[in-house]
């Protein structure tokens, strides 16, 4: 019962939905900002945070779910663009894309992300997403 109650709209987060969010969730501050804003966008009802690793691991159910989504959102911490490359490896392309270190004044480092940077990144991507969706 609890598990059922915890599902949003009766669906697993890994199921296909209108908008799926793929953070790189990398090891640096910017990778973790990507991870955190994916969580927050989902909490804000802007889409479902997806398992990027399911694409990289070529897990069929997850790849199929991603292919049936209406919009893919890619979030990379740095210009290496790992999440984007991961998606492209399966022929998927983010309709909305953000590179934290390129578009915000955040230097890549190996510390925990700062809340103000997370908030700024979240606001930027949320605006971009709202503009895209209309």
């Amino acid at each position, binding site marked *: 019962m*609890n*598990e059922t109650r*915890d*599902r*949003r709209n009766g*669906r*697993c*987060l*890994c199921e296909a939905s209108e908008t799926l*969010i793929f*953070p*790189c*969730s*990398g*090891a*640096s501050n910017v*990778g*973790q900002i990507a*991870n955190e804003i*994916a*969580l927050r966008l*989902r*909490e804000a009802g802007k889409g*479902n*945070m*997806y*398992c*990027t*690793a*399911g*694409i*990289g*691991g*070529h*897990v069929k159910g*997850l790849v199929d779910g991603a292919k049936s989504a209406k919009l893919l959102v890619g979030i*990379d911490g740095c210009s*290496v*663009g*790992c*999440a*984007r*490359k*991961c998606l*492209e*490896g399966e022929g998927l392309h983010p309709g909305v894309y953000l590179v934290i270190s390129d578009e915000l004044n955040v230097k890549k480092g*190996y510390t*925990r992300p700062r809340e103000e940077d997370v908030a700024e990144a979240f606001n930027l991507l949320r605006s971009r997403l709202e503009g895209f969706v209309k």
Partner: protein
Amino acid sequence: MKNNDVCEPAEILIFPCSGGTNVGKIANEAAMDLTALHKGRMHCLAGIEGHVDSIIESTKMAKKLVVIDGCHVQCAKKTLEHAGFGVDVHVVVTGLGIKKIYDFMMDLDDVNRVVDSVSRQIRGNNPRKEMIGMG
């Protein structure tokens, strides 16, 4: 890679799945904590997923590869294996009795349980440096 880059090779590299459920979040958090505790260094799994050369190369140079998957789908382990890497320590969060729910509620005690399990297994595991399927 540049100096002090996490993409540099390290003795023990930790790859969490960081997936889109509570257990993926716990995996990610545990990897960060293990890095802070100097048990190893969290690495960018997405770099393996994206076949990024520098990250593949630094992974090849590690002495131990540690994977933390949130659930039995084991996406992180599959990602590494797809790239030809064997995994030395593999912890599945749900395998520790932590229930996968479709939300992001996270109990710090659960994160600590994962950290403890990984730490124990790192200590008890002998280093291995071979790639599967490559001799």
